């Protein structure tokens, strides 16, 4: 285990070292699609299996790689539950704005949302990419408001996500729905924004309250409890996905009865499991195609799962309360 400091060059160097010097045959990939994009290319060259637990930009899996497996569903589907919920409303929002930072994963999620919105008959009136380290989105939000968007979706990360909420409040821009990807599910988003986070929606790959379970971890909530006892904080999907990555690799190795990468690869492709992370089945491209994101809304400072309807824990507050 090495720390790549989320720096692509460091990550590439360490991956090469893992393979050529430490002689590993299986690698749990780094954080983020951008960096995994680089490291999985090295794994592919040396025929070392990369289990990517936090990288799901579609580009990664469209390169014909044989040794890359991703536990998360594709990033493109991240905001689908929010859009499905919106379209199912008796008076759905009419105009959608989608903004994304310049980032492989975030752009994939935003493009996926744009496509889905159009399929559902919601009109996308504004679509923009902003620099990842932007310090000011007030003019971007002013332009979105002028475009008449009553639904704002953003695929930003924590910092830009919070900036968007704060500046939307400063400008008194009140869309009926405000939806985020990664940002909204991170606890810091809620603790930092307090009441301003109320009513914000999001997509979520995994939450402790989901009803999934397996023989090894038990239920999702049991996993979350044990995790919190050991590490002192409530796990997000990042942790759960990574734990499941380890579990799946172990299953595949046990079933193959050998550490031979070809045999383990065949067993990974043959997996069809239901785990505390949800159902898992890898496509030929290495994508987990059995699972999908759930939709939630922040209510009273908590994440309340609302979509799909069979796991719903409450009812949607719509339109989102004004500032």
């Amino acid at each position, binding site marked *: 285990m090495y720390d790549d400091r989320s720096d692509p060059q460091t990550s590439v160097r360490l991956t090469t070292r893992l393979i050529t010097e430490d002689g590993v045959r299986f690698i749990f990939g780094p954080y983020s699609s951008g960096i995994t994009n680089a490291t999985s290319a090295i794994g592919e060259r040396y025929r070392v299996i990369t289990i990517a637990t936090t990288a799901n930009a579609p580009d990664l899996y469209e390169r014909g790689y044989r040794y890359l497996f991703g536990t998360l569903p594709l990033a493109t589907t991240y905001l689908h539950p929010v859009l499905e919920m919106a379209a199912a409303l008796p008076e759905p929002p009419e105009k959608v704005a989608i903004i994304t930072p310049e980032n492989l994963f975030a752009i994939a999620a935003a493009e996926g949302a744009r496509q889905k919105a159009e399929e559902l008959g919601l009109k996308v009136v504004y679509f923009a990419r902003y620099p990842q380290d932007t310090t000011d989105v007030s003019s971007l939000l*002013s332009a979105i408001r002028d475009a008449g968007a009553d639904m704002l979706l953003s695929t930003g990360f924590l910092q830009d996500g919070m900036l968007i909420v704060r500046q939307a409040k400063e400008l008194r821009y009140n869309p009926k729905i405000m939806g985020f990807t990664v940002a909204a599910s991170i606890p810091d988003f809620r603790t930092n924004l307090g009441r301003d986070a109320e009513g914000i929606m999001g997509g979520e790959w995994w939450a402790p309250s989901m009803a999934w379970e397996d023989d090894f971890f038990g239920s999702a909530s049991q996993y979350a409890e044990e995790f919190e006892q050991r590490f002192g904080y409530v796990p997000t999907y990042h942790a759960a996905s990574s734990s499941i990555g380890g579990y799946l690799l172990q299953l595949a190795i046990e079933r193959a009865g050998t550490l031979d990468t070809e045999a383990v690869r065949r067993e990974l492709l043959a997996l069809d499991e239901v785990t505390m992370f949800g159902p898992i089945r890898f496509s030929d491209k290495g994508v987990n195609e059995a699972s999908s994101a759930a939709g939630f809304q922040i209510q009273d400072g908590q994440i309340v799962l609302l979509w799909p309807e069979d796991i719903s824990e409450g009812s949607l507050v719509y339109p989102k309360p004004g500032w």
Partner: protein
Amino acid sequence: MSQILVNGLLTGGLYALVAVGFSLVWGVMNVVNIAHASYIMLGAYITYWLFHLYGLDPFLSIPVSMAALFLLGYAVGSLVLNRVVRFGLVMTLVLTFGIDMILQNGALLLWSADYRSITPAYAGQGLAAGGVMIPYVRLAVFVLAVLFVALFSLFLSRTRMGNAIKATALNPFAAELNGVRIQRVYALTYAIGAALAAAAGSMVSVVYTIHPQVGNVFLTRAFVITVLGGLGSIPGALLGGVILGLAESLATVTVGIGWSEAISFTLLVAILIVRPQGLLGKRFFGGVG
């Protein structure tokens, strides 16, 4: 449209304050102070902790963060920087880069990479004037930024110490012949630069999210503004900040926000071609005023 201009202007005020200390140190000492990013960060954290632990209003903590960073800046300036300043730009660049890395990684160890923010009761409140929203916090940041720049400009032109700084910027050798202790002037200039960075950091903390790398985003802008306004020029920093804020804001609604950084660096290149000394810079090196 007027909203866009207001947004740009308000952001520009903060940019100006971020840049003014950086520009001063560059202009007077010929030091590209990479550690400026860390001083902004430290200022932001001081304000954060005073708010978080003692409930002190973020604007009232500005004197505290300025004083703390003034002392730190003086120590770094007199004990470290003064020893290498005569070896030229590259040596001091490496040195301040090193200081920056130490401070950022220190912050990472002490306070972790968690994102933090300050939300005083009046956050998000604002003034609506003719369909234009002016958030109180951003307005206050703008006014204070302009005030600091103005006061500092007066300090340079009206006080003995300010004149000594200007004299040293013009010609260190001649200044020394006239009895200016330039080592002391350098330490003091560096300390003032750090204190101004701290003031900017305190204000960054109320409009932005705080983390150990928060200063880096602003450092690139400080660089552009300094070149734009002219090395060491205080009014130049103000003008450059406002121009950059407006340019970013206007880029958002015309060519798209994705181009805003391209626009600021195009400005940088254009000014270097057309007017290499900067908009308000003097033609000789380091004209402070």
